[in-house]
């Protein structure tokens, strides 16, 4: 390949142009990191790293900023949404690969892809106008009636159910990440060699036992990679939660309380930040989010690559 590249001048130019185009990816990542660090340096100098990450202050008036409430909201909504999405996503994958008649596999695959293609702002608006009233009128009072009397668990369900809260945001987020987890799990399940499954059937295993003891153990690295990828997606999701989370900078214990994630804070306050420290702190938040999601996504990629290597052997 390189031999011909040396001979022809046009070829040399073309190869340099394509190389430059592909290096934009590295340049963007480096530039994003550099700019975010550069822009947040006043806030880093003022609040430090640990103090910023551990402070619950978010007060534009006194110019005192800390990231903990935002990180808490981000981690909590992401965790809850994964908790709700993973069982459903794996169930969908099991249904598509093992149970469904073959004429249904295509349409369900398309349906999952469409669910993934709907823009997040549509999820957000649907959440605000449709899901949120249903939550505050029916589901949340119901949950409150059942759980609020219980010790320990009751803490999660006190307060007035308004529908604009952590629970609603987590449900919307979980609907959004179901397609990612489901399609990667389905692809991993599909890669289980038929011979291995057939041997288990020959030993008298039921369908569920084959799934539980053969398919899932065989594809667990890929499924795990898919889950971590969804985690990375959920961390950075903005518009789906911006409508229904309320932007409340407090650490709360109830699922019926409004909260703030890093993304929601950025979406609501970035364009309105009126002084340097405020804006710099917002850039600092963006930096924290970028590092968090980059690491998560890199871990996901690591597992997905390992799974790929395992199957191609």
């Amino acid at each position, binding site marked *: 390949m390189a031999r011909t590249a040396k001979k022809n001048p046009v070829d040399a130019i073309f190869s340099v142009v394509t190389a430059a185009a592909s290096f934009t990816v590295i340049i963007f990542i480096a530039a994003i990191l550099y700019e975010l660090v550069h822009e947040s340096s006043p806030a880093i100098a003022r609040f430090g790293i640990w103090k910023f990450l551990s402070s619950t202050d978010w007060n534009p008036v006194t110019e005192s900023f800390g990231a903990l409430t935002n990180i808490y909201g981000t981690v909590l909504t992401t965790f809850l949404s994964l908790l709700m999405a993973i069982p459903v996503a794996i169930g969908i994958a099991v249904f598509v690969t093992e149970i469904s008649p073959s004429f249904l596999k295509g349409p369900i695959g*398309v349906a999952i892809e469409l669910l993934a293609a709907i823009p997040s702002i549509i999820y957000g608006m649907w959440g605000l106008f449709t899901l949120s009233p249903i939550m505050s009128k029916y589901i949340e009072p119901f949950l409150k009636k059942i759980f609020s009397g219980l010790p320990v668990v009751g803490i999660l369900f006190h307060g007035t159910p308004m529908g604009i809260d952590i629970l609603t945001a987590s449900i919307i987020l979980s609907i959004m990440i179901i397609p990612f987890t489901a399609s990667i799990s389905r692809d991993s399940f599909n890669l289980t060699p038929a011979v291995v499954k057939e041997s288990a059937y020959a030993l008298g295993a039921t369908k569920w036992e084959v799934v539980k003891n053969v398919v899932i153990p065989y594809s667990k690295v890929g499924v795990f990679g898919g889950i971590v990828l969804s985690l990375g997606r959920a961390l950075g999701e903005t518009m789906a939660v911006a409508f229904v989370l309320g932007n409340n900078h407090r650490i709360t214990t109830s699922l019926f309380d409004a909260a703030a994630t890093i993304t929601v804070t950025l979406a609501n306050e970035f364009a309105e930040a009126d002084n340097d420290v405020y804006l710099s702190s917002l850039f600092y938040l963006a930096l924290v989010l970028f590092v968090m999601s980059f690491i998560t996504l890199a871990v996901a990629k690591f597992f997905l690559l390992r799974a790929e290597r395992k199957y191609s052997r």
Partner: protein
Amino acid sequence: MTREQTRKIEGFIALLLSTLAALLGLFWLVFILGDVLVHGIKALNLGLFVNDPTPPGVEGGGLRNAFVGQLLITVCATLIGVPVGVLGGTFLAEYARGRKIARLISILADIMVSVPSIVIGTFIYAIIVRPVGHFNGWAGAVALSIIMIPVVLRTTEDMLSLVPWTLREAAFALGAPYYKVITQVVYRGAATGILTGILLSIARVAGETAPLLFTSFNNSFFSVDMNQPVASLTVTIFQYAMGPYDNWHEQAWAASFVITIFILLLTLTGRLIIKWRYK
């Protein structure tokens, strides 16, 4: 109960739960799409496309500025993002095929695809909006193109890798230099795949809101000047849905309807082309 019976019942329950999970997924799709359709169609009228917004609280008016602005930003983003993405993918699949650097860029591009889009918005704010001094359409287009590049780059790489190596060897044997082999043989072989990738990447960025919030911002007036703030459907939906007026909400639904249909059609077209061409 015998051991066989417990195993059978356990299996039945597990498979039933999986079926319910699939139904739940389908339920959400129907619920969300149905809701957007019902509300959207009710609010849809011709005035929406030909009128500009009226002052808040005044009935009537449309979203002509947002439709045109959205189109403008998306087209500009495509014009920037597609050439860079296709050329970058060409480098990975051809000149750097099998090299470590190609592997590294490919992995980084995969990560970039999922990096929070709002972070890209803050980045563009720092490098374009602040130096220029005000929000502008180009900043929005560049932000979207940064999201687009890794998507196009990765699909181009994959599609070019599918073209059999012997085809290139045949062209080499005729004495063609590599760039001619790529542009006249490889690109032709992979054209449908690359086109599909481009369609899907447009579908991906057309619904983005977060990176536009502090780049192209919003504009209540009709403007095609990309050096000024430009209205977009998505940001308008955000502003109108969060606003207090009922006719704003209706227009937000109508805009959501249009953008959802547009994106789903693009996605379906892309999927159909893949199915028709590669199976």
